[in-house]
């Protein structure tokens, strides 16, 4: 998967968890909790969905590494690498 594919997949999953977010308006450095308003249940749902879709099991200790779309894409690329 290219970075662009991963970014699209991450945003798609994010917006499924929080349907009111418009993927077109999400900035790469926005924090999913502080800026986009996800709570702990949303983050767990996001991580669960990423596990199902991409097969990447993100441990709790790594949650800070997916805090923004840019960080998440880099993290997922490394894990899938």
């Amino acid at each position, binding site marked *: 998967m290219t970075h662009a594919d991963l970014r699209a997949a991450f945003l798609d999953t994010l917006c499924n968890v929080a349907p009111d977010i418009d993927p077109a308006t999400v900035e790469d450095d926005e924090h999913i909790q502080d800026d986009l308003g996800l709570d*702990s249940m949303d983050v*767990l749902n996001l991580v*669960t969905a990423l596990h199902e879709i991409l097969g990447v099991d993100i*441990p709790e200790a790594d949650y800070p590494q997916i805090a923004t779309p840019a960080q998440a894409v880099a993290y997922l690329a490394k894990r899938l690498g």
Partner: protein
Amino acid sequence: MPSLGADMDAGKLVEWLVEPGDTVARGDIVAVVETQKGAIEIECFEAGVVQNLLAELGTELPVGAPLAMILAEGEAPPADSPAKATAPSPPAPPAEVTPPPAPSAPVTASATNAPVPAVAASPPAPDGTPPSSPAARLRARELKVDLATVTGSGPGGAVRLVDVERLAGAPPARSPQEEMRRAIAAAMTRSKQTIPHFYMSQTMDLHPAMTWLATRNEGRPPAERILLGALFVRAMVRAAVKVPSLNGQVNEDGFIASGPVHAGLAVALRGGGLVAPAILDAETLDLDATMAAMRDLVTRARAGRLRNREMTEGTITLSSVGESGPESMTGVIFPPQAALVGIGAPQVRPWVIGDSIQPRHVVTITLSADHRANDGRQAARFIAAFESQLSAPEAL
């Protein structure tokens, strides 16, 4: 139309999930009603066979209005089945309501949801005022519209709500967000005006719970992980079992303690507002089952698919700031309950352990309690029980 939750007195029927001839059991979802707090699934309170549907889709119906007639097994239908309930809510003041006609055939004690039209159109008055529905009369009064000037579109020229609103150029219906704010405003105003709140707080060590949880979740796939919030719910439920005077509802006769703990959960909705549905019989659920129930409840709350019992039967509610943010929260009791547990965001603070001071994750819980049902002693016992539960998370 069953009760829909604090200060919601009407709902709009938007979907039937049964039809005449269907067999229904107690607890079956039979209809979906749109309320100020989103769509609510209506559970059936009786078992039997659906004889006929009395309420029409799209109708706004007050709590108590008949939705359908269900016949118990072996029960014969009444000779004179009632007409469909077509008149919308809210009912007019008593003086203007035509008394509901007695059923022409005796209704046996087992007949459920006795089919009595909730509202009736008024007959034409001698002064030429056209017949009108109660909702139309109420709205006409609000909008200062003379009913005699309205052309009715209902049967026999009866004036309906829409006729009044069209003539008055009334503003369009409020947005779901506005309706949600009104529902919250009504419930919270009632709470603060009628419930003598008092509060008690305690900051407690969260280290054992967080450490235990991290170990428990390590190596498990996301679908099997547990959130800290589930530990708080379990601690609240077990503390509520220990202090029954905080677990129940207050009605006209005073506080009624509940055997089961129906654990309310304040769920913030994306886009604004919140709902506080309850995990029913939470005392029967272990930690894993509690987490599964929370996940299900939050998902359905956000999708607007809660059930009426979840909206009305809560006996104590937990409201949490979340993972980050302010350290404490003093909440407003969700009527008709008698207690609310407010949980601040965990913080790292200097903490005395033995003779040393260590940086430690701590959390502050604040119990809001109804002074009519409790005194400080019960509140203090609850907080001690909560802290004790949280200090031994492996037993939750």
